[in-house]
């Protein structure tokens, strides 16, 4: 019998993000002392992935992102965005960036700011206003779009920051703490938005302190510490399949549990522990607020953000 081997064709596209042996030192004062923020870091993010970068404060996450965006110069090594060196402004044509705690010109309205960024990115005049209106709606700022940014809350500024990163429909998104200052409902909606972007073939590089968020949406993660790469890989690869399983079932009566133990014992298995599973606080919060909003008939409020 003739056998055929199925070969997976290699992706002809260059990696969406490639960091090669990146080192970044910051000078300290006038002496020769230097602070090493990133130390010999290498990472590759394939197109279409959601890639999480984790690390405590001062681990070099933001510095790495800034080098990627050409905002600072590396001391050694190089970075590429879609195959173009990141110190070339042309590399940023297909990149959207949301910094950690963004800040904008306070005397502009949300719509004006998005229009400015859209024009800067060369979004064609035809369809520009429609795109801006869509984004405003998407990030839940419909009622505040024509107000000055000085009247925006921290969470609204964050959501506007996300909109400006998406305004030219980039293939790669670099998000530094996208849920900082956003309420749990907004954070959940941002996670949904990121998953929707992945479904549309976008690549997302995400820095976050929210481990749950990273775990829920990322395909791969890298853990940085003092500028060095501690671990890198897919979540399954890093966390492993484990040698235990959990079954989530409705509560059992004492005799039912005893029967189950007996049944498992007859097969050489045993129950290692029985816990009642609490509802996660974020899910409880989300359910309670959504219910309250539905009851009050609030529709399209500032808190609603949908993909």
């Amino acid at each position, binding site marked *: 019998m003739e056998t055929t081997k199925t070969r997976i064709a290699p992706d002809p596209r260059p990696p969406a993000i490639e960091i090669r042996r990146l080192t970044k030192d910051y000078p300290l004062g006038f002496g020769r002392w230097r602070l090493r923020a990133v130390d010999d870091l290498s990472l590759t993010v394939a197109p279409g992935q959601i890639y999480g970068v984790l690390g405590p404060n001062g681990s070099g996450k933001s510095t790495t992102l*800034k080098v990627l*965006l*050409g*905002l*600072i*110069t590396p001391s050694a090594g190089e970075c590429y965005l879609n195959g*173009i*060196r990141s*110190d*070339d*402004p*042309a*590399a*940023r*044509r297909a*990149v959207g*960036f*949301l*910094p950690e*705690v*963004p*800040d*904008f*010109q306070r*005397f*502009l309205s949300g719509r*004006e700011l998005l229009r*400015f*960024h859209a*024009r*800067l*990115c*060369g979004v064609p005049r035809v369809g520009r206003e429609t795109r801006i209106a869509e984004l405003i709606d998407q990030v839940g700022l419909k009622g505040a779009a024509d107000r000055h940014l000085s009247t925006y809350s921290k969470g609204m500024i964050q959501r506007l*920051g996300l909109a*400006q*990163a998406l305004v030219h429909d980039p293939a790669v998104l670099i998000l530094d703490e996208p849920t900082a200052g956003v309420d749990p409902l907004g954070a959940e909606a941002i996670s949904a938005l990121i998953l929707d972007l992945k479904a549309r073939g976008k690549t997302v590089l995400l820095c976050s302190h929210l481990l749950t968020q990273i775990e829920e949406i990322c395909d791969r993660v890298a853990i940085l510490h003092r500028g060095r790469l501690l671990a890198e890989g897919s979540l399954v690869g890093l966390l492993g399949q484990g040698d235990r399983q959990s079954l989530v079932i409705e509560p059992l009566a004492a005799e039912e549990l005893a029967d189950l133990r007996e049944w498992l014992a007859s097969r050489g298995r045993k129950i290692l522990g029985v816990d009642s599973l609490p509802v996660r606080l974020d899910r409880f919060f989300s359910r309670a607020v959504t219910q309250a909003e539905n009851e009050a008939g609030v529709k399209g409020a500032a808190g609603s953000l949908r993909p």
Partner: protein
Amino acid sequence: MNDSLPFSLGRVGVLAGNAFREAVRHHVFRFMTLFAVALILGCLGLGELNFGESEAKFIADFGQGALVLFGSILTIGTAVQWLGGDGEPRAVLTVLAKPLRRSEYVCGRFLGTWMVVLVFCALVTALLVGVLWTRTPAASVEAMHEAPLVGLGGVSLAGVAVAGALQAVKFGLLTAMVLLIASFAQTNLFALSVSALVLVICHLQYLARDSWQAGQGWIERLGGSLVGLVFPNFQLFGGGEWLEVGVGVSLVAAGRVAAYGLAYTAVFLVLAVWSFRRREI
């Protein structure tokens, strides 16, 4: 740096428009314009304090003073904010992360700031001309019908307009100098202080030039020549000599001063671009 993105005047225009919109809505512009207008209108009631000058000459000098003082504050106050604030300039992070060259950013900020100052100069000069017109004796107005824009109460209207235009050129130069300082300053306070110091040096530059020409020792001459060359002479932009009727406005001389200002502006702008190119944000 590996730049394959061509320089775009379109992006410079977008950046300039945004800088203009932002600055014109800022309190600094509103307050400086308000103060200048109040000072010019206020001098109408100070006719008795004219120190022996004609009332029109007194108003013209007062108006020029308001233009110079508040225009300088407006220029420094607006240009110094181009990196968005102290510490990490977060307001520019999202802009510089877009596909644009740093030189486009500097040029856009320069043009936007200069446009604001031009609007200020045009408003104050127009108001000054209007006030002079209202204070003109009827006889002078009749004379004006025969020779328009020649003079009102001993003050040349053309001279007022040319002096206003030269101040606008000077503020453009000051904008470029402040942008250069802000391109390496780590805090707004530093940029503000150094800019104010530079403004004073430029107004007193003629003293350095004098010591260069008449200095005895080589150190004095060298120091004088360096200050004289590095810092432009802001006294040249006064235009006060053309305010009086009869002196006659020399457009050639005014053009020469404007060319001097524009040449220095180009040099400082190139230096600001060079300095900002490697700035770590």
